[in-house]
């Protein structure tokens, strides 16, 4: 596979994590075990060049590296929430364009430049750039676009519309009617769910269950897996999207790379959406209550809703169980668990960041214990299908 995508430094505070990935590097490593002779075209600043080359060599990837002045660093509070996104360099600071061609090409949007690609089969993920594929001279015999729901609305001229199914379908139709148009569009929600648009009604792709949820770079993995399955293995779009969904489930569990071939991902379980009318309970002082309120906002952002949110636990509670997500603050001790269970039953998911997992499991033996906030949200909003 021929890939055009960035190499950036990514930092996360919770969990503490810092890696040299970016979309291009991550996608190249993702398919390195699936696709013979992977080539990555990218920009890289001198300070990261030798580390990037060493990493590419580790996975048998050929690097076509163009120097850049820009050291782009993305910072995250946790794997769901970006805390710093670098500015896009001004037009006069944009690097010279990359040009490449190939049979199967995966193109990501860049912040510091652009890639003009010419391919038989091309998968394009604009990465929030809203740059049209053909605008820089790129061509493709077959083109698939990987878009978030917001991006689809934007590309379809409905940027101010809400993310309803009707609006998404209308936006997709607008994209298909623009010429030259992609053959298909793959949209992603924020918890691993996918939809394939060919024109007409979209085909939903079920997501697969994972034990934990590391979200940084999940879109890169999706694009890489789909490009491999659709472009290189010749799968039909829906089948290729299903492989991408399986690859997402594999990746988000501890950020595992490289990806596995389809036969090795055959025994995953589907997950179902549980994101509506969630019941949240926060116990503790300000930080726990504040996190619960932030959780309510994120659930809405992720397409879910809350039935109620209680943060006023003082030994009395009006909330009725069962609770979907319980968040406990650092001020509380293990003895509070008995009282909580007595009043609201066994919570589905417990997130208690200041306590070790074993202690929390002992306090809530029937609950799923989340070791990090994104996993807590994921498990509150998704359940493995039985």
């Amino acid at each position, binding site marked *: 596979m021929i890939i055009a995508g960035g190499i950036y*430094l990514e*930092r996360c505070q919770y*969990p*503490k*994590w*810092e*890696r*040299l*990935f970016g979309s291009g*590097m991550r996608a190249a*490593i993702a398919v390195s*075990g699936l696709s013979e002779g992977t080539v990555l075209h990218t920009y890289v600043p001198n*300070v*990261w060049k*030798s*580390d990037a*080359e*060493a*990493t590419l*060599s*580790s*996975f*048998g990837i050929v690097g076509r590296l163009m120097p850049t002045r*820009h*050291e*782009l*660093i993305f910072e995250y509070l946790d794997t769901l929430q970006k805390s*710093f996104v*670098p*500015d*896009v*360099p*001004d037009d006069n600071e944009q690097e010279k364009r990359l040009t490449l061609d190939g049979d199967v090409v995966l193109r990501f949007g860049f*912040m510091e430049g652009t890639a003009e690609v010419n391919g038989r089969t091309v998968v394009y993920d604009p990465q929030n750039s809203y740059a049209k594929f053909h605008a820089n001279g790129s061509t493709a015999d077959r083109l698939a676009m990987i878009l978030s729901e917001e991006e689809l609305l934007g590309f379809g001229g409905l940027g101010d519309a809400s993310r309803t199914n009707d609006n998404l379908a209308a936006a997709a139709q607008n994209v298909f009617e623009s010429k030259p148009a992609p053959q298909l569009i793959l949209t992603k929600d924020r918890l691993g769910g996918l939809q394939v648009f060919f024109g007409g009604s979209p085909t939903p792709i079920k997501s697969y269950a994972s*034990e934990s949820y590391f979200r940084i770079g999940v879109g890169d993995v999706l694009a890489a897996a789909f490009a491999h399955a659709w472009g290189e293995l010749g799968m039909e779009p829906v089948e290729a999207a299903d492989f991408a969904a399986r690859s997402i489930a594999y990746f988000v*569990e*501890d*950020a*595992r*790379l*490289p990806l596995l071939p389809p036969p090795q991902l055959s025994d995953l379980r589907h997950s179902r959406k549980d994101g509506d009318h969630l019941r949240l309970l926060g116990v503790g002082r300000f930080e726990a209550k504040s996190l619960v309120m932030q959780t309510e906002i994120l659930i809405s952002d992720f397409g879910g809703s809350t039935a109620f949110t209680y943060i006023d636990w003082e030994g009395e509670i009006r909330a009725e169980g069962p609770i979907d997500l319980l968040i406990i603050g650092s001020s509380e001790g293990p003895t509070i668990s008995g009282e909580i269970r007595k009043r609201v039953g066994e919570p589905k998911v417990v997130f208690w960041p200041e306590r070790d997992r074993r202690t929390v499991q002992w306090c809530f033996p029937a609950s799923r214990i989340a070791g990090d906030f994104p996993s807590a949200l994921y498990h509150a909003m998704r359940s493995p299908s039985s």
Partner: protein
Amino acid sequence: MGGYAPKGARQAATSRRSVVLEDGCDVRFNVDLVGVRPDQVKGLETGEALLVQISENGKWRSLVCVTNGGGIVGTLAAFQGLARLIACVETGARYIAIVEVASATRCSVEVIRG
């Protein structure tokens, strides 16, 4: 404008700021391995020491963590300082990787000069 490396970014290695002394090879840092092999990570205990060595496959080479039995557990990759670490190993510096977390899906190690 934003978008450039904040001061100090270049010193950070992975999840903990690396300590660089003397010959530049006295590094110590924590990192998750890439390409963890479930058959090799199975049975690893916290605190167990893995060997850090270069693996060559034709023109490709990588820095890997290896059990005493010779099995490759995973690869050290995708972080600042990797190239220097490889150069240090090539000039004779020896490192071990102490297992901090080992599960079917993850192996986190602390790399120290041995």
